């Protein structure tokens, strides 16, 4: 938080920092332990997954605690029309089958069919 982004290096400089694939010796292998089995998806990823699974939906995802595992999603989706709140929330939960309660400790939801007043 508040950390300044590094100034973008030019393409040429960035390219130079990456060793060529056939640089003579084998590339160091990533240790197997670096695989995160319960990786916490980012707010951006959660937003994209909701919007991909529910075509036409718009999702706003925020991190409630800064820890990445208590997320809130506000989802506006025409397909919610005619569904009860429970059914609307289920549609969103189903996108993250098995991850809620796991990697995502909590996903707080607010669903609506139309954008709240004052928004477009």
């Amino acid at each position, binding site marked *: 938080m508040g950390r300044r982004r590094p100034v973008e290096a030019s393409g040429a400089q960035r390219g130079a920092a990456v060793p060529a694939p056939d640089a003579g010796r084998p590339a160091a292998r990533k240790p197997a332990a670096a695989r995160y089995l319960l990786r916490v998806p980012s707010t951006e990823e959660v937003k994209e997954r909701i919007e991909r699974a529910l075509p036409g939906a718009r999702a706003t995802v925020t991190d409630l605690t800064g820890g990445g595992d208590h997320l809130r999603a506000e989802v506006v989706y025409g397909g919610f029309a005619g569904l009860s709140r429970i059914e609307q*929330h289920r549609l969103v939960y189903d996108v993250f089958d098995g991850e809620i309660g796991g990697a995502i400790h909590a996903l707080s939801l*607010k669903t609506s069919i139309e954008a709240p007043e004052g928004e477009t």
Partner: protein
Amino acid sequence: MTDEQIRDEIQRAISEERVMLFMKGTPDMPRCGFSARVSQILNATGVDYAAMDILPDPRIRQQLSGLSGWPTIPQLFVKGELVGGCDIVTEMFESGELAQTLGVEQPGRAETPAPQAPAQAPPLQIE
């Protein structure tokens, strides 16, 4: 206790208790903010309800979510129907729908004397 006995116990609670809350901890000692909020809301409505702590055995939660198709805790059931978790219960409480679902008066209205609710515009409100 077998998985089946746990499931039967949950099923029994859902069908026999008119207002049934599954939560982390107990209403007196909730162990999660979301569970705490829902039990406080129920307390505020004055409704009689039963609560089950899901923490003592991880299978309680597994079986409950299997039955309800709902991944998170708390879960509130009224007359055998899943009403929702913390978000939905909070929204319904704020809109007055919850009192209707529970069959109670919305607190702060009707016969409740509404202690701090001013009858008309509050006197001298400075932004």
